[in-house]
């Protein structure tokens, strides 16, 4: 009995020792990537980061005041998108990256807004710089930085958020209204905070611009039947269907929309429609859906000369086109970090923070600069001024960029049964 107890204790000790970090592996700059790797918004970022790191390392690495050091990536699964796992697990993952894997900088997540906001305190405590590149659409993140700069100055975000997205969608909808003379809208959102907020914001902005918003329906996660809402929209003559859904059941919504041949144009933020395999999977029933991909470059487009270079490199390495909405931003974050380190000529956190605030890089989706007070990337409709969004429409089974006008490849198409 005592021997077995002793053996168990010994085994535990051995386990712990072998998880301790190896001494002396300091030369590469370690990028910690806390991501929900089993989900689209995790693996899209992971692939973007790894592609960038590979390109930078094969070009020689980062020039830190004279010495060339490579990047190395440590990805940790935060599990924060898993339905049954509490956020404390994600935070444990972030701490593991900081304490055990000795990450110098963090790029990527955590992906869920709750987890990311909770992680801000952790990052502040350990004084680690982080560039958030995927998930987290809430404006609250950068609001916290503005409110308490000295505590949260370590947190940057180079992906867009709901506030900006609403404005861009609003502009697109204005164009559609003028071109096709539509004026009745119906809103269907998922019952999560950011989707509801998006829906309410859209309701206000549409009403202000002269649209009649027939109704807004909020569906809890897991709803598998949208017939009541869709038929209501059809009966009342809705011409625009604004959707904001993360859940897989949005595919059911779109299929029902096609089957019912509703005379409205579906538009919004639909997680299910961000993958290139969407068209084939839906057997064409997702055609004409307009999806906001948050940042440009997550689908083939010609925003800057780098965009297609990135898309081709990504397709070559991973076998499919960029998907999700964290791919281009994660890729660029690594380059932004590289530029900041080279300007600061060191990896000291405070100096890199200042360098990152001053950075000005022409990237995959436009000019990439951070706002000095909120550490949010500066958006714009013009790639020469700021970061451009990627709003696409599924046309003929492909994602075609239709907005902003200056960088679009195609025009908004209405479904044929709407004429």
């Amino acid at each position, binding site marked *: 009995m005592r021997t077995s107890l002793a053996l168990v204790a010994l085994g535990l000790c051995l386990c712990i020792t072998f998880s301790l970090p190896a001494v002396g592996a300091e030369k590469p700059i370690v990028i910690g990537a806390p991501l929900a790797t089993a989900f689209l918004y995790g693996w899209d970022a992971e692939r973007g980061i790894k592609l960038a790191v590979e390109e930078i390392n094969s070009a020689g690495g980062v020039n830190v005041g004279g010495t060339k050091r490579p990047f190395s990536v440590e990805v940790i699964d935060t599990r924060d998108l898993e339905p*049954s796992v509490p956020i404390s697990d994600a935070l444990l993952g972030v701490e*593991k990256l900081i*304490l055990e894997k000795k990450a110098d900088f963090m790029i990527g997540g955590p992906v869920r807004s*709750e987890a990311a906001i909770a992680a801000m305190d952790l990052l502040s405590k350990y004084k680690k710089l982080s560039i958030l590149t995927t998930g987290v659409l809430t404006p609250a993140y950068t609001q916290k930085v503005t409110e308490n700069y000295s505590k949260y100055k370590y947190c940057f975000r180079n992906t867009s958020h709901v506030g900006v997205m609403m404005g861009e969608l609003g502009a697109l909808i204005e164009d559609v209204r003028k071109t096709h003379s539509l004026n009745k809208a119906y809103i269907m959102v998922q019952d999560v905070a950011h989707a509801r907020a998006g829906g309410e914001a859209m309701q206000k902005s549409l009403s202000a611009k002269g649209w009649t918003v027939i109704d807004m329906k909020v569906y809890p996660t897991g709803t598998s039947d949208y017939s009541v809402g869709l038929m209501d929209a059809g009966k009342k003559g809705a011409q625009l269907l604004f959707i904001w859904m993360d859940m897989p059941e949005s595919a059911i919504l779109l299929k029902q929309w096609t089957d019912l041949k509703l005379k409205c144009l579906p538009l919004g933020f639909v997680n299910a429609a961000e993958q290139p395999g969407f068209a084939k999977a839906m057997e064409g029933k997702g055609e004409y859906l307009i999806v906001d991909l948050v940042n440009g470059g997550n689908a083939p487009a010609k925003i800057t000369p780098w965009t297609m270079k990135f898309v081709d490199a990504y397709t070559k390495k991973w076998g499919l086109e960029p998907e999700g909405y964290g791919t281009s931003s994660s890729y660029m974050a690594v380059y932004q970090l590289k530029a900041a380190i080279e300007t600061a000529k060191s990896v000291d956190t405070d100096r890199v923070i200042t360098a990152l605030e001053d950075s000005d890089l022409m990237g995959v989706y436009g000019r990439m600069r951070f706002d000095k007070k909120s550490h949010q990337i500066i958006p714009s409709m013009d790639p020469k001024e700021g970061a451009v969004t990627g709003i696409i429409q599924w046309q003929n089974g492909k994602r075609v960029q239709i907005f902003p006008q200056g960088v679009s490849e195609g025009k908004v198409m209405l479904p044929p049964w709407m004429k």
Partner: protein
Amino acid sequence: MEMARKERIDRGLKVRTEGIYAISSLEEIAYLVGPRLLLIVGLLLLPVILDLAPYWKRVVNIMCVYGLLALAFDFLANYVGLVCLGGALFIGVGGYLSAIFNVYLSIPFYLSIPLATVAGAFLCTIIIMPCLPLRGVYFAIVTLLYPILFSRIIEALNIFGGTNGISSVESFPSQYLEQYTIIIVMLLALFGMRRLVNQDVGLVLRGVKDNDQSIRASGINLTYMKSMAVFIAALMGCFAGAYIAHLYMWAGLSLFALDFSIIPIAAVVMGGGGTLVGAVVGCLILVPLSEILRAFGTFRIVIYCVALTGFIVFKSEGLMVYLQRKYHQFERWAKV
């Protein structure tokens, strides 16, 4: 032909430690006190040893939280006969109450945690009380669904911060306070429960599991006894929830996560149901294992579940029961 059978009898040392003879010599004292001392001292020293690997200190905190939940489950399932599959309910209620007291009512943490524990326990008991007359399976199903129901209600009504949760909850002022609070509370709970089940009250509760009609026939109110058991278990669970809220400075929907229900059950099954120590030992194994297996992504859940099924089917007595048997008894061949 000589036939022999295997016989299990108590060790001499065990027999000598019964009753007053337990203090007759150092050997007997060491036999009884040894394992307990190992557990207590080991756990108390853990934060100090793990200064070398600070990340693992966090794991110890989480482990003790799960330990409290596992104790609650073990107590309810194996001593009172109520299989409560919804440990997440306690954590969620305790966590949210503590966050509400701390953030909305500005009560400092050393008051909000005890308040949340007691208030949460009352709330949970009242919620579970209507389901107490149900048969085992139904009670299990309902308690499994309660956390899901509550999280959906909070989500639908968008109260208490909705899907964003309540943040900026006060944290512990010192790291040592943070760690030793939970370890000491867990040890107190463990030894307290062991004491409790041997007291009069505990015996009545165990009677509820064995034969509740006889308890009723003795003129004791069955529902009152069961509510008391749920209250005690809820005290432990809500404390764990309140602690987590302050540990991570945040309370949200994922406090009702399924993991908080499942891992304690797995820990009890593996550690040995019916011996409260088994619950703690099970957590000692499972939680660090979960961290070590993080590299495997969701495959780690497959590993747990397969291991859990294996334990349930083949070795349903669990680790501690097995170890205790080896400690107290020995086997030998005896002539038939």
